[in-house]
């Protein structure tokens, strides 16, 4: 039986670290940026105002293609509220082309496509206009 995992998952507003404002500003424009350390020349995740590898504070908020592939996932069938009324939904790790692996939900996806390696792209969801946009992923068709 093929199931379909829709969008519209909860988007509780997180407490934001002011150092990460460039990420949230980009997200508000439906753009994903990934922090890159100019000192050690590598991208990192999750966003903070310094590099967790070398401690550098010269952070370049680089636009990401948002393209990646599913590293692993689970179809969650039981959860506490507010997620409980949205089961089943998908929790996944997605490895972005930028080299970082990110936790997020896969939405607008039929169950028969859901495998490790599934090509996905970033999308943002918010339940209300004053919610912060939350990073999610959705399948993309393979380019020719």
């Amino acid at each position, binding site marked *: 039986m093929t199931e379909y995992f829709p969008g519209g998952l*909860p988007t*509780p507003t*997180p*407490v*934001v*670290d002011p150092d*990460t404002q460039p990420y949230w500003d980009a997200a508000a424009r439906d753009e994903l940026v990934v922090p890159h350390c100019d000192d050690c020349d*590598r*991208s*990192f*995740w*999750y*966003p*903070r105002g310094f*590099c*967790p*590898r070398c401690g550098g504070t010269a952070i370049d908020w680089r636009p990401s293609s948002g393209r990646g592939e599913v*590293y*692993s*996932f*689970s*179809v*969650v*069938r*039981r*959860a*506490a509220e*507010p*997620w409980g009324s949205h089961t089943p*939904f998908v*929790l*996944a*790790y997605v*490895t972005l082309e930028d*080299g*970082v*692996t*990110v*936790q*997020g*939900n896969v939405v607008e996806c039929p169950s028969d496509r859901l*495998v*490790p390696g599934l090509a996905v792209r970033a999308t943002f969801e918010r339940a209300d206009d004053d919610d912060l946009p*939350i*990073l999610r992923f959705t399948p993309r068709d393979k380019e020719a």
Partner: protein
Amino acid sequence: MNGSAVIVGAYEHPGRRLPGHTLAGVHREVVAGALADAGLAWSDVDGFFTDSTAPGLGVIDLMQYLGLQCTYTESSEMGGSTYVAYVGHAAAAIAAGKCRVAVISLAGLPAQRQRVSPPDTPAPVSAFQVNGYGGGYGPVADYAVLARRHMHEFGTTPEQLAWVKVASSQHAQHNENAFLRDTVTVDDVLGSSMIADPLHKLDCCVVTDGGGALVVVHPDVARELGRAGATLRGHGESHKSSIAGEVDLTYSAIRRSGELAFREAGIAADRIRYASLYDSFTITVLMALEDLGFCARGEGGRFAEDGGLVSGTGRLAVNTDGGGLSNNHPGNRGGMTKVIEAVRQLRGEAHPAVQVPDLEWAVASGTGFRLSNNHYSSTIVLERFS
């Protein structure tokens, strides 16, 4: 550190549902039990270790309640690995001359809706964690993501995961205090409700009230007591997380903690015939089997299947009390019961049906938080003391 301390007291609260109890009261019961087991008095205690959930303003309020007069104390938070790590911390304190009789105590009442308050200040990562640590999807989904990758990478099957639960139930049938004493089959596990694919309800540990305590002492004290126990030979701890967006779910922090513990002990996994392995979920045990070197990476499923973890007939006796999957996971923290069953085994005081004969060495390993992302592990190597 090798040989600097001996576990001479170990006590597991017999209760699994404790209505009418207080958290402080459970601490009192288990500390009393462990001291009686060791043959020591409350006034002998000069070191006290508990976790961040101690009632009131923490460990100092608890020591006042218990009537302890200590010169060394710790109330850290490493989740379920805390009490395994504390055996090492207590030994370090004893070796440094800071105390001679250390008590490690765990109490929890999750089945009584005891609330562990969420932190006032959320972790920085919570803004990027889908729904943060305290919310929504709970720990099962995080471990399910780990299990899915193990299946994808190594061909591990749901049946192999189920065998971990089957072995625990076969041990628990002999434990009169076990929360679940009925034996289950692989089909029972696969037929139980799916919580977070591929983990079923019976792939998950029990939720129980209760607790336990350990008494860790200077070897001179242990020799005076004349009670059998377990000498700490090696101790290791490690943290692993997706610290900068690098995620590799094929190994865990257990690996580094085990390397450190075995190196200090001067032995390898091939000397071990009993292991207490953290079993918050069935996949946690497969990771520990591989990370501690009981089998090669990716071979955990094949090691566990067909009764591989059953005492007497399997490849390695694991969690002979029934573990967190069938016996007890007090306060949602399994590290304490892991050490207690290892001590029982080394003393020859496990149930005769699951006792490993002539046991000299044992391992206990614990893990805190979530193995698929941010977690902390501790492993100890113990030798029989008599």
